[in-house]
């Protein structure tokens, strides 16, 4: 008889905030610049310098807290988290601490899995500063890049005990969280560049147990795929340890994406003592009701609410609604198309099939597509009024995607307009009939399905500029006369 184990997963997410300047000084936050070029005496922790908080960063965290249904503290207090490391210029990180002082507490985020909604509790949302980056090139030599030191960082931690019990739920949580952050425009959500970092802690316990198992924390997860694979691996590993009579060790483990295994990084035998105390250089920030309300007014419609609306208002499927709302820019693109008169289902098909395929091929974000909602609306109108056929439209789509020219202008310039001259089509139909006596004979003999072949021949002769429906009608008429 084998025990069933239930995993419990806590999620700790760090999101770099989208601000022009760092948390406590005026340096740029840009990623990828030459090492130690976006630094100043303040973020290098030179003696005598002082931190002045970035109001924009505070607002980003307040807006996130509101979007995650948190209680927002009336006063935000900064603390010092003290520890020594070469990438930490001041010997302490300015952060927030405890259960009262973080900007947001007691929130939740809703996920949807297999058509069911579930609330994932959020324990806290707080603001802190990032550290520099350490590089070890040669033995005995290390280099530090402080460009990242002082970049504003938001920490979002799920409730304890955890509400998440599978890798799938963890993935959904992260997908929804990332969508919310990008909708709020507080984080670009790029896991590969490290602007969104996820450190899950994982434990397993027998299904009938009231207590949680010993947890491990997983690091180095740089994509959604790693998060899912890492958690799945870790759950299986822990179950195997327990099944073989062993005990899970509380530790931090790294994840190897290439090898698809986790490995021990450091054990947490004792809790590091960070000696938190209130940061005396920063006066606590009052978050007034007025400020809060003005920020609440800036919250956009969030992904799940949007998807609901798409289903109800536009009659889209669950799948379509989800795909369209996963990214703010995609949803915005879709809504602009609809606003320009494109029928929602049609807009959805073009966006999720044709446009998405080309964006994937060219690795472009939808916001940089040369084929804009105006182009798409123009194209769809050309089909609708019978100017072009669906086949031509697809060819045009490619061209417009590359050139950014208006479809109606291309059509006009090239004479691609659909042949609506009845007589010209009738002439073409007669020609095809004359050229294919065998087929005509089959048709006459009762095998009427061969008309499809004849339609194809007419379409070919007219370079696709004919309306196939009308061609078929004309062919029937002409065949009657043979």
């Amino acid at each position, binding site marked *: 008889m084998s025990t069933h184990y239930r995993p419990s997963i806590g999620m700790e997410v760090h999101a770099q905030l989208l601000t022009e300047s760092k948390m406590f000084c005026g340096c740029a936050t840009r990623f990828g610049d030459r090492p130690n070029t976006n630094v100043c005496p303040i973020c290098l922790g030179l003696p005598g310098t002082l931190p002045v908080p970035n109001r924009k960063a505070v607002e980003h965290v307040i807006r996130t807290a509101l979007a995650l249904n948190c209680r927002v503290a009336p006063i935000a207090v900064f603390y010092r988290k003290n520890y*020594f490391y070469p990438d930490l210029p001041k010997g302490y990180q300015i952060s927030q601490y405890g259960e009262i002082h973080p900007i947001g507490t007691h929130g939740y985020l809703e996920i949807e899995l297999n058509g069911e909604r579930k609330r994932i509790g959020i324990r806290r949302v707080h603001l802190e500063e990032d550290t520099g980056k350490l590089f070890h090139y040669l033995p005995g030599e290390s280099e530090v890049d402080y460009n990242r030191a002082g970049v504003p960082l938001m920490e979002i931690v799920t409730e304890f005990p955890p509400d998440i019990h599978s890798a799938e739920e963890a993935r959904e949580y992260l997908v929804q969280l990332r969508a919310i952050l990008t909708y709020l425009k507080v984080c670009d959500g790029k896991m590969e560049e490290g602007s969104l970092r996820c450190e899950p802690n994982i434990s397993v316990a027998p299904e009938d147990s009231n207590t949680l198992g010993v947890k491990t924390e997983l690091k180095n997860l740089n994509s959604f795929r790693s998060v899912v694979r890492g958690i799945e691996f870790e759950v299986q590993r822990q179950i195997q340890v327990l099944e073989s009579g062993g005990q899970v060790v509380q530790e931090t483990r790294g994840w190897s994406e290439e090898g698809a295994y986790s490995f021990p990084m450091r054990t947490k035998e004792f809790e590091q003592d960070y000696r938190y105390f209130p940061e*005396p250089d920063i006066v606590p920030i009052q978050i007034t009701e007025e400020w809060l309300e003005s920020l609440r007014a800036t919250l956009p419609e969030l992904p799940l609410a949007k998807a609901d609306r798409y289903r109800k208002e536009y009659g889209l499927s669950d799948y379509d609604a989800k795909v369209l709302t996963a990214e703010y820019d995609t949803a915005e693109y879709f809504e602009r198309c609809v606003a320009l008169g494109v029928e929602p289902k049609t807009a959805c098909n073009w966006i999720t099939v044709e446009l998405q395929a080309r964006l994937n091929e060219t690795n472009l974000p939808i916001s940089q597509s040369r084929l804009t909602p105006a182009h798409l609306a123009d194209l769809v109108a050309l089909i609708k009024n019978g100017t072009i056929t669906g086949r031509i439209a697809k060819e045009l789509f490619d061209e417009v995607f590359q050139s950014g020219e208006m479809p109606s202008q291309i059509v006009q310039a090239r004479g691609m307009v659909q042949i609506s001259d009845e007589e010209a089509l009738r002439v073409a139909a007669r020609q095809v009939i004359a050229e294919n006596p065998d087929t005509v004979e089959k048709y006459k003999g009762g095998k009427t399905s061969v008309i499809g072949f004849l339609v194809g021949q007419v379409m070919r002769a007219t370079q696709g500029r004919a309306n196939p429906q009308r061609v078929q009608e004309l062919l029937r008429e002409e065949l009657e006369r043979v």
Partner: protein
Amino acid sequence: MELHLKTLSELRTLLDRGEISAPELTEAVLNQMAQVDPKVQAYLTQTSDLAHLMAQQAQERLQQGERTPLLGIPIGIKDNLCTAGIRTTCASKILHNFVPPYDATVVLKLRAQGAVFVGKLNMDEFAMGSSTEFSAFQVTRNPWDLERVPGGSSGGSAAAVASHTAIATLGSDTGGSIRQPAAFCGVVGLKPTYGRVSRYGLIAYASSLDQIGPLTKTVEDCAIMLSAISGHDPRDATSVNQPVPDFRKSLRPEVKGLKIGVPREMFGQGVHPEVALRVRDAIQSLEEEGAEVHEVSIPMMEQGLAIYYILAPAECSSNLARYDGVRYGLRVGAEKGHIGMMEATRAEGFGDEVIQRIIIGTYALSSGYYDAFYLKAQKGRTLLRQEFDRVFQQVDVLMGPTAPTPAFRIGELVGDPLAMKLSDVLTIPVNLAGLPGLSVPCGLMEGLPVGLQIIGKPFDEATVLRVGYAYEQKAGLLEQLRHPTGLA
């Protein structure tokens, strides 16, 4: 009279009238420095070349008709204030080679006003001490008796003013570090209200207590200096947006109806009877001028020292964490890996007093001890503030001694840390409450200066200075104080 002996306000008049030139004045001060500083040892870095250049520039501005309060005035700066391009050591081995690429806000303000920088002044390492004996580099002497300490931690700043090697200086005060040396050296020293002066560029000891202030020959000079360095600074989130008056204008020798509170606790055990006598005489002289004197009680003042020696080391243990050998300053043990290097650098770079305070502070913040020490001290601090608030509903200023004794002998208290720390028992509560505090000389005792401390309401430096000025006028000690006996 020789120029270096004159006060800032006297020199201001002479410069503005064109009776003397800025280079001439700077020359006089540098000459005095060359003569007496080898004995006093107030300066860690003398910047005579820079001073000549700045004096020349000041002279040009004077000739163009500019009239600003500090234009052409030779000023010395405590070595924990960052000066762009000038070595700033905090009197510590760990920063022995540190040249800041930026100016402290107060230094920028002095530059803008055309002050002349004559050098950087000795102090206790990282401003931790009461005698300047804890400097990693040299021991500064008291100009009244070269065998005695000048007080600390701004001992260099006080000794330079007393020995006329600067017309005025800047110091910093975390628990008495401006007022106590001012009292020991017979000069005027002011710790402004917390938030009045920007701390940007002041190398932090205890951030919630540190405040920059002037040391001068007279109260009037002090008022001029305070106006020059005050004001809100967007680079210091704790600096307060309060209007900065021209403090000189508030100086009237007028105390009629002024309510002076005399806290019983400031005349308790440990205060030398002779000191108490001088201070009581001073208070009485103001009473004779029409001030009302009330005995008051601030019981929490007696807990001040205990509260301070939890909070200040706690903050210092964190503030000094950045000196790790990674980015600037001393680096020792590069071959030991980064953690080994940090340990070796800090062990070698910090003096014993600093290390002791880092250890105490680390302990006070450690989990399991935080509530019993740090949190309790914070609560005590709040209570102390409330007591000050209550008393200030009844009186305009508080008065008592600045320090319990006059200057002690060099080496006398080094082996007795508690006695050394008691030297600040009367000044520390003022920092904890964030109030302005002024020390004005109120006579000599066995040939050594004694300081009268005047404590005011938050941001009411104007009243504090006015009372100090009234006393100074009445006491008529200035001529005697001009000539410290140790240099005779």
